[in-house]
């Protein structure tokens, strides 16, 4: 057995989404760099405002997750933030978030990095912490203000947003964990060297050996070992760097378009990196019914995937009302043009 399942039953006690207010239409990027010739893979992407970063987005997502879980922040034994856009190179984002939500000082706090799957890494670790009995609750967060190099294909999609999960014992969970699985290999599909502002990527190489190999490998293995097929799932959420990749992977795994539709947000928010798949899961939980089985599969360049199988409980109906729905954040939008985007994302040299 290579899937993971803690000896103590665990699950998601609360979840919270965050999306910033600003949106950059893909047509703006195309207008500036290709006179409108290139087609954007997304309608628009979410853009952080001037006063936002991965820490401020993590704080709001965390407050939403705690409100839904109905716990006191002092009950948390871990506050873990997964991000590739940490505001400080050295100084934990986790301590700022922990202080802001009132979880200090009896808590471990740290930052995690694994490109786009840093968010689900914090979930795996939180399941382990709660599952081992070291603590009753842990806060797992993925949040990013992703940067795409101007005139790079990633500029259409590199977006800002995040999600947070209070992980707790099964008896206080709105969705309990059936099992999880992690699948990694050394694959240099995308990277950013220290002190560099923008990442580099392997173009088409990011598809088959990276995204599809890991996402499909992780999902297949977890479902096989749990004895499930795609038909057993109400919804699946796969990492979504663009709309095409998760659609192709889902089809290959046997899922229908309707099974991935609810959590497929990339066309309207872009790729929120560490927040991407787990933000999709918040949209699914907003609409899920008790008994629904949900598959979550992340992907992080470098490369690897985490896969999780959840079953929604009766607690979902009451808890989802306790914080703003993901649809509320999606509807809260103000379009900006490329010039304002360049200002907000610090792409202008001020000298």
């Amino acid at each position, binding site marked *: 057995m290579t899937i993971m399942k803690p000896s103590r039953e665990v699950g998601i006690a609360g979840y919270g989404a965050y999306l910033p207010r600003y949106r950059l239409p893909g047509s703006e990027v195309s207008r500036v760099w290709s006179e409108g010739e290139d087609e954007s893979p997304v309608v628009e992407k979410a853009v952080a405002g*001037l*006063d*936002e970063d991965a820490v401020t987005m993590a704080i709001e997502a965390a407050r939403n997750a705690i409100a839904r879980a109905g716990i006191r922040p002092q009950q948390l034994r871990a506050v873990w933030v997964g991000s590739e856009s940490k505001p400080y190179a050295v100084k934990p984002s986790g301590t700022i978030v922990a202080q*802001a939500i009132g979880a200090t000082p009896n808590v471990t706090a740290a930052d995690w990095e694994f490109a786009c799957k840093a968010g689900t890494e914090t979930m795996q670790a939180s399941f382990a912490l709660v599952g081992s009995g070291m603590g009753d609750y842990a806060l797992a967060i993925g949040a990013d203000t992703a940067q795409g190099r101007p005139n790079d294909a990633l500029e259409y999609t590199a977006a800002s947003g995040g999600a947070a999960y209070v992980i707790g014992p099964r008896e206080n969970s709105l969705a309990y964990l059936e099992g999880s699985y992690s699948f990694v290999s050394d694959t240099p599909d995308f990277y950013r060297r220290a002190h560099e502002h923008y990442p580099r990527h392997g173009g088409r190489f990011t598809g088959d050996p990276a995204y599809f190999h890991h996402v499909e490998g992780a999902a297949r293995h977890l479902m096989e070992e749990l004895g499930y097929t795609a038909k057993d799932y109400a919804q699946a959420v796969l990492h979504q760097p663009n709309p095409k990749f998760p659609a192709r992977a889902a089809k290959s795994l046997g899922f229908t378009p309707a099974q991935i539709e609810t959590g497929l947000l990339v066309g309207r928010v872009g790729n929120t990196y560490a927040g991407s798949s787990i933000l999709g899961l918040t949209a699914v939980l907003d609409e899920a019914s008790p008994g629904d089985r949900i598959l979550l599969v992340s992907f992080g360049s470098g490369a690897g995937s985490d896969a999780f199988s959840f079953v929604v409980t009766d607690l979902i109906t009451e808890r989802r009302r*306790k914080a703003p*729905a993901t649809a509320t*954040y999606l509807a809260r939008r103000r379009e900006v043009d490329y010039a304002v985007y360049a200002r907000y994302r610090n792409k202008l040299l001020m000298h």
Partner: protein
Amino acid sequence: MHIPRQWRTRDQRLSLMGEVCPKCGVKLFPPRDVCPECSGPAKEPFALSGRGAVYSYSTVYHAPEGYESYVPYTVALVRLEEGPMVTAQLTDVDKEQVAIGMPVEMVTRKIAEDGEDGAILYGYKFRPALEAGAAC
């Protein structure tokens, strides 16, 4: 803001942590040593909800040093539902949308940065209140 002051005021800045007077029950923000209502000692921490309404406001076009990159921005007096009046920036709102009485809620945001290599100051701002549960 100097590092020691940033550290000393972290709870009130990051999470709007105020005080409640143990003698007369009034809620206070920012925290202080003496209750301005009854002159008793005030030292019990009290987490304010962050919900309130705009009492008055003004838009800043010529910002003080350290805030220039955010202009134009709106500063408001916010009457919190527990009673205290707080001065803070509004965020995630166009200045034309701001009105007296507008319901707002606290969010933690970047306030200022001490240059490219200095500390980032986080603190409270207010934005138009989002409704919990509803998909607007």
